[in-house]
Each structure stands twice: as C-alpha cells, then as structure tokens.
C-alpha cells in the first residue's frame, strides 16, 4: 500500500513541471488608437488576462471590454453601449499560437522575434489573424509586445455614415504584457 502511495506522490511530483511551463498575467496592457480625419481616439485597458504555454507555444488572451478607459467618459459610454455592445458581448478573446517556436529559446534570456497566428473574437465575431511581435525573456518573466490592426468591419462593428470622420475602420492595437510562471 505504502509503495503505491509513493508512486502516486511521484506522479504528482512529475506532473508539477508541466504546470511551471505555463506563464500568465492578469494586468496585461491593451491599447487602441483610432486615427480618423476629424478625431483621434485612444483607449487603454490595463487588466488583460493572458496565458502562454511555453511548451507548445499556445497562448490565450481575454480582455474585458468595459475595462477600456477613455479620455472622455461619454466616449467610453458610447463605445460600450453603441459599438461594442459590451453588456451582450463582455469580452474580447484571442486564441492562438507562436508559429516559429523552434527559433525561440524561452529558457534563455534574450529578445526574440515571434510570429503569432490564431483567432480573434471581438463583438462575438471570430476572425483569423496573424501578427508579429517580440518576446523578451528575463529570468522568470516573459514580456510580450505586439502591434497590429483590427478592422471594425471584420467584427460587425457598424460605424454610421455620419461618424466615419470620427471613428477609423482600421484600429491600431498595441499589447504589452509581462507574464510570470503559474504556480
């Protein structure tokens, strides 16, 4: 009986390293910028959740739409109420993977160029996307950075004719997150 318990315990010990292969954050920063002819709009969310599995290169992101902070309170309300309909679709998510994992040594400190491919879900509309970014390994922390564009029209976010000069269709998104090992 004791022998079996030992085996069981050993199983858990061996299982432990697979947990450490995952890195996460709850305070990733996601910024977006709309550069239309008449108006520039910026918003920032500092509570994005991200998980990265360094063994497989898979990553997932979740961003609470209501967590985006705007310079103008009314703009924030219209963003949630009229465009993103955040009470119906509270989160934006990304599920994807690093496609050039073989070129990256996440066990060694350094900055690496990474390619990421996956599915972006905003406003309950899923869209395939590919982007490039950097991965910085510094001791126990992995820092991710990427910039890419999201099209409102790809996610059924309707901008009425009268607002075309105020809201761009191509929204520049910048993500920055420092991930730590999951315990």
């Amino acid at each position, binding site marked *: 009986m004791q022998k*079996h318990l030992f085996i069981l315990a050993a199983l858990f010990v061996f299982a432990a390293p697979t947990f450490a292969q995952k890195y996460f954050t709850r305070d990733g920063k996601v910024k977006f910028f709309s550069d239309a002819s008449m108006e520039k709009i910026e918003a*920032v969310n500092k509570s994005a959740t991200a998980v990265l599995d360094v063994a497989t290169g*898979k990553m*997932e992101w979740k961003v609470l739409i209501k967590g985006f902070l705007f310079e103008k309170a009314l703009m924030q309300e219209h963003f949630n109420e009229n465009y993103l309909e955040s*009470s119906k679709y509270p989160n934006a998510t990304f599920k994807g993977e690093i496609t050039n994992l073989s070129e990256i040594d996440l066990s060694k400190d350094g900055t690496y160029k990474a390619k990421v491919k996956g599915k972006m879900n905003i406003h309950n509309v899923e869209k395939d996307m590919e982007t490039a970014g950097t991965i910085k390994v510094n001791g126990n922390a992995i820092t991710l950075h990427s910039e890419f564009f999201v099209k409102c029209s790809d996610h059924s976010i309707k901008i009425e004719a009268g607002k075309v000069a105020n809201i761009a269709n191509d929204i520049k998104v910048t993500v920055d997150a420092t991930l730590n090992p999951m315990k």
Partner: protein
Amino acid sequence: MKKTNFLLLLFFPLNALVLHAQNDDLLSLLGDELTTDYVIATFKTTRIVNGHSIENVGEGVLDFKISHRFGPVRNGLYDVFGLDDATIRIGLDYGINDRLMVGVGRGGREKVIDGFAKYKLLRQSTGKRNMPITLSLLTNMEVKTVRFADQERDNKFTDRLFFANQLLIGRKFGEHFSLQIMPTHVHRNLTTTRDDKNDVFAVGAAGRIKLSRRVTVNAEYYYVPEGQVATPYANCLALGFEIETGGHVFQLHFTNTSFMNYSGFITQTAEDWFFNNGGGKLMSGARFGFNISRVFTLKKPKGFE
C-alpha cells in the same frame, strides 16, 4: 491489494485527461475570476425632462445645459404655437467623482437660481455583486429672486428659499427599456395661500424606450396627492424624444409646465394637458420645450495617458 492496483490504473488515464483538458483551454487554468458588471447608460443624460435621472456626469466632466419651455401650443400661429413666449434655464453641472455631481443654474421663470448635489448610492450590477437597482440621492435648493408680490409685508431672505429632496430609484431592463421611480419632498418656506402646505410630498415615475443607438422616447410624470397644494393645480407630465450626437444630447418634448425648477414644476403647474376652460371648451396646456446638453472633459481620468 488488488483493489488498490486497480485504483491506481484508474488514476493514470484520469491524470492524463485532466492535463489534456488544461492544454485545450489555457484561460480556464486561471479559474473564473468573478467581476462585477455595472450597468451603464440607463438614461442618456442626467435629466429625464424636468427632473433628474439616476445618471451622473463622469468625474471631471462639465455639462453645459440650455433648456427652453415655450408658451402653450393652443396660442396658435399668432404666437407661432408658443415659440414667442420662451422661458430659459442655463446651467452648469460638474462631476466631482463618478458618484457625486453638483450643479447650478438660473431659470427665467420667477428668476430662480438653483443648486443641487446628487450622489449615486447603489449601482445596478451583476456578477460578483448583484444589485437590482441604481439608487441616487438628490438634494436641491432654490432661491427665488423675483420681487415679492406684497412689498408691504415684512419680507425676509429666507422667504425666497425652496428645497427639494429626492430618492431616484432606477433600473435598466435590458437594452431597450429603463424605468425610474422618484419619491420626492418639496419644502417651501413661504407659500402663496394658507391652504398651501409648506412640505409637499410627491412621487414621480419616468421611463424611456430606446428606439435606436441614438434616439430614445422619454416620459416623466409627477403625482402630487391632493390637499397639499392650493388649486388650480395640475400634475406635470412630459413626453419627448432624445437624440444623442456624440458630445451633445438634444431632448425635445411636450410638457404642461413652464417651470424647470423642482418647486415650480411640482407645486406650481397650473394647466393640465387637457382641461375644460369653464365655458365647456376643451383646452390644452401642452407646450413645446427642449434641453440641450454639451459636455466638456476638464480632467483626464486617472490612469489614462
């Protein structure tokens, strides 16, 4: 012994299964972090028509409000259906934080200067904290600066003061419908007749239906139980549209009052929407009016750079 061996065998595939499932959904590894989802945009602006809504302006936001009430529509073409006879209120509201706002204004009818503070005590929410309603407290003070009707009387400054206190209880039922109930207390330091009570209790109800992203239909009604206000008296009812265009909100409506201050529209409204003029002729006290709101962000929110 055999039994435990068998049990162990069971554990292997189970462990593998659990690990496999985790690989499929990385976010679920973090567990569900329950957050509170506060309801936003129950109403488009801080006023329904004459009275307040549960909405506040954001922290550091200045709201410039211009309101007009015209003469009775029944005056016809001679008065351009009341447009010749306008009373105006100009006001400034400011958000001290996301729960507390203050404001001042000046209305032409009886030359009233008013000031108020509104505090959002409860916020409708779901998730970690479930709250079925939003509750705001409003306290309002008015100074009537119009000359006293009776100059012979020993008129004091305190005779010019009027107060109103309200509980604003609101709920957003889905995207398209919001409702609000407003128990109200009005205090008048000086009344016109002996039959008028100094303290008047009223209850208001208001609702809005959202027709599209930018257009809503609004209604607001205040009921004053009898015996508190001397006749002729009418309860005030307002019906209108609201159009929002980015930084502006336009509220266009018909009401049976020309007052835009609490003691005015709750205790001094004289004509009903439809009434008999005594000679058997049906008349209407309805008049056109509008409120325009324009917001300016004076202070950038914290954490925004």
